[in-house]
């Protein structure tokens, strides 16, 4: 009796499943969104959402191996506006011949303007939508977001690959949506890579100009709003403090600018710590690094081993100065980008209970942030 029931059950399932496979969507009926671009809409209270997707019907296996040649571009960008991100996506979706698949989003890019108005809605949407990976990287575009979205991938096949590399290669920050959500939930701030657009002449056709996007610096956020931006050299130290900076190159000068050297850091790391004093918390940011000298011009033609001390001192000065400037700026705008509030929460709970309601104010006025650099030389390059 049991086995007969089971067999009937199994046949029933098979019949059911053949009649209607509810979640089944063939691969060639999907569009995989790689990049999401969010900007303010033309009307107040609206958002403009663009999606960047690869076009699998143009990506034949021959093309894939040969690199993105051919006249047809294997990617597309679709834009729509509406009152919310979900609605805008619906408007995009209704005009498409395939199903949108959001699980491959790698990059979320916003405009400075949208950031100033607050990205809380965006983060809330990502938190709830189960498909969107919270590990996607956040990037900010200065200038027109449209231009950045239309960048021409010269070394890659898809534009989102280029954008992804800005986050992963380590020349600036690798802030993910998750970092933003965690910081927001705790009432703290974060920094994201800031990009800028340019027009360059196409290598293939001198009369054509293409959009080129590059790193400009960092955008600083506090509680979901963009408060300010940092230029590249100063933003580097913020990335360094986060522990995510690769191979930065610094130029130092001495002898009143007559001598100079270039150093390339092979290893960088950053750490933050806090110490409570009667006057309040004292935060220390430790910046560690090992460098090798890649160029040197000494006015007195001394050997490197004789002037390495001078070089390192200048190095420490330069890095510390850059860091002090960036921290001072972040305090001025009240953006706790290094999430120093967490250190208080973990190490001095009673003090944190008192200040957490008004942390941006306290950060602006009371927090003392010191920098300690621990830099050393790995090697002098190929020459003595």
């Amino acid at each position, binding site marked *: 009796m049991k086995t007969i029931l089971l067999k009937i059950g199994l046949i029933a399932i098979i019949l059911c499943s053949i009649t209607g496979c509810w979640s089944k969507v063939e691969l060639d009926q999907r569009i995989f969104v790689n990049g999401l671009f969010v900007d303010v809409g033309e009307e107040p209270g609206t958002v403009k959402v663009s999606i960047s997707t690869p076009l699998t019907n143009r990506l034949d296996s021959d093309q894939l191996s040969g690199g993105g040649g051919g006249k047809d571009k294997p990617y597309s960008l679709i834009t729509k506006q509406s009152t919310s991100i979900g609605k805008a996506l619906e408007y995009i979706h209704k005009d498409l011949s395939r199903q949108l698949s959001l699980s491959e989003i790698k990059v979320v890019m916003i405009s400075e303007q949208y950031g100033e108005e607050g990205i809380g809605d965006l983060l809330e949407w990502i938190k709830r939508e*189960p498909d969107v990976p919270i590990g996607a990287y956040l990037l900010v575009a200065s200038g027109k977001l449209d231009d950045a979205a239309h960048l021409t991938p010269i070394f890659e096949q898809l534009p989102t690959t280029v954008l992804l590399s800005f986050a992963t290669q380590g020349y600036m920050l690798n802030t993910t949506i998750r970092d933003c959500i965690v910081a927001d939930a705790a009432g703290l701030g974060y920094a994201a890579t800031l990009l800028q657009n340019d027009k360059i002449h196409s290598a293939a056709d001198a009369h054509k100009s293409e959009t080129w996007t590059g790193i400009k610096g960092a955008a600083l956020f506090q509680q979901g709003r963009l408060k300010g931006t940092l230029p590249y050299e100063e933003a580097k130290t913020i990335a360094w403090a986060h522990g995510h900076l690769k191979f930065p190159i610094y130029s130092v000068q001495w002898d009143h600018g007559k001598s100079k050297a270039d150093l390339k850091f092979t290893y960088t790391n950053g750490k933050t710590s806090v110490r409570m004093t009667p006057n309040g918390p004292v935060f220390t940011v430790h910046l560690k690094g090992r460098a090798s000298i890649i160029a040197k011009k000494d006015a007195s033609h001394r050997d490197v081993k004789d002037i390495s001390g001078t070089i390192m001192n200048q190095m420490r000065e330069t890095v510390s100065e850059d860091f002090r400037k960036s921290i001072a700026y972040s305090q001025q705008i009240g953006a706790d980008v290094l999430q120093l509030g967490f250190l208080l929460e973990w190490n001095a709970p009673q003090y944190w209970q008192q200040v957490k309601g008004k942390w941006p104010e306290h950060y602006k006025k009371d927090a003392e942030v010191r920098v300690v650099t621990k830099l050393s030389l790995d090697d002098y390059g190929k020459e003595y």
Partner: protein
Amino acid sequence: MTSNNNWRLARFAFVYFNSQASIFLIPELVSTSSYQGIAGIVFGSLLGFIILFYVVYVGKLQPASSWVTFGNRIMGKGIHGAFVVMLLAWTVYYASYDIQSFVLFFGTNYLKGTPPWFIQLVISLVILYVVQLGARTLVYMSEGLFLLIFATTLLITYFYAENANVHMLPAFFRYFDLPTFFSNTMATFSVVSEWVVFLFLAPEFTFGKGTFAKLAVASVGNSLVLLSGWMFTLLNFSPHYAKQIQYPFLEIIRGKIDDGLLENSAPFLIGVWTASMLIHCSFLIYAGTKCMSYFTKGKGEGIIVPSLTLVSAGIAFYYTYHLSAYQKHYFSIITVLVWIFIELIPLYYGIVAMLRIRSKKWWSEQS
């Protein structure tokens, strides 16, 4: 052979509790615990040992027969009958929770558009088939799964640890307040003390010398899994965000977008966890079947198993269409108290047995 048997039971215990410990309890704990869950988890697990002790004690009273059959001699027919009915209701209800949580989990994340009743149907058929194979097969199956679950637990720990912020660790020792500690302890206790169903392992598997020790090892293992899961969830997301997350493990996996096969293997880890959940659910229905056959004097098992599975699936079906009722019931304090009451059953029997049984001849005198 006995020591082999004990380790077998320990492995079964580890697999049985694994799904609850690693996936279900953690969101509940995280939503209330802030930074101070360690004390609650440790204390709740220690309290669980008391229940384990009494379960093994009651099981050892008559190793060759099942608790349902000899329990009436300890408590009296009426009270024993009442407890059996309560246990029956509890196992069926708990199984429906399992089914519904699984349907929610899988359906929302991977199978949008598929009606929940379909997934429930599939799960019910699987459970139906497995339950009628018997306790011995269930325990053997869990043995095979043990190694797999052990390996995937290590893998999951690796995923958790990748982006964990270790600077948060001092916070775990700086926060403490009694109400949170109490609620954490109760939540942990209600999940790790589910030993009452182990009374249904007899007569295929007997409790003997050393059973308590080996089962305690399994319990410690589960508590460690629970502790590390809770800790890493917090280290990854901080309590402020973590308490909003329904499925922390999925968020960790979704936080990875590197192009590696390992990082994208979340559904398979979920498959292993699903197997543990199915064992849990099947064993609950098996226990319910044994309770029911106490009343039918062992007859009609062919009908009992499908009907109990149907009832469980029916409750799960109801909850599918009354989602807020499900959430309310699942997280309510009444549920926790009912759970604890049922899980303390071995305690009642153990204490009464300790008081009443004065000599070894007591059993023959009773019958």
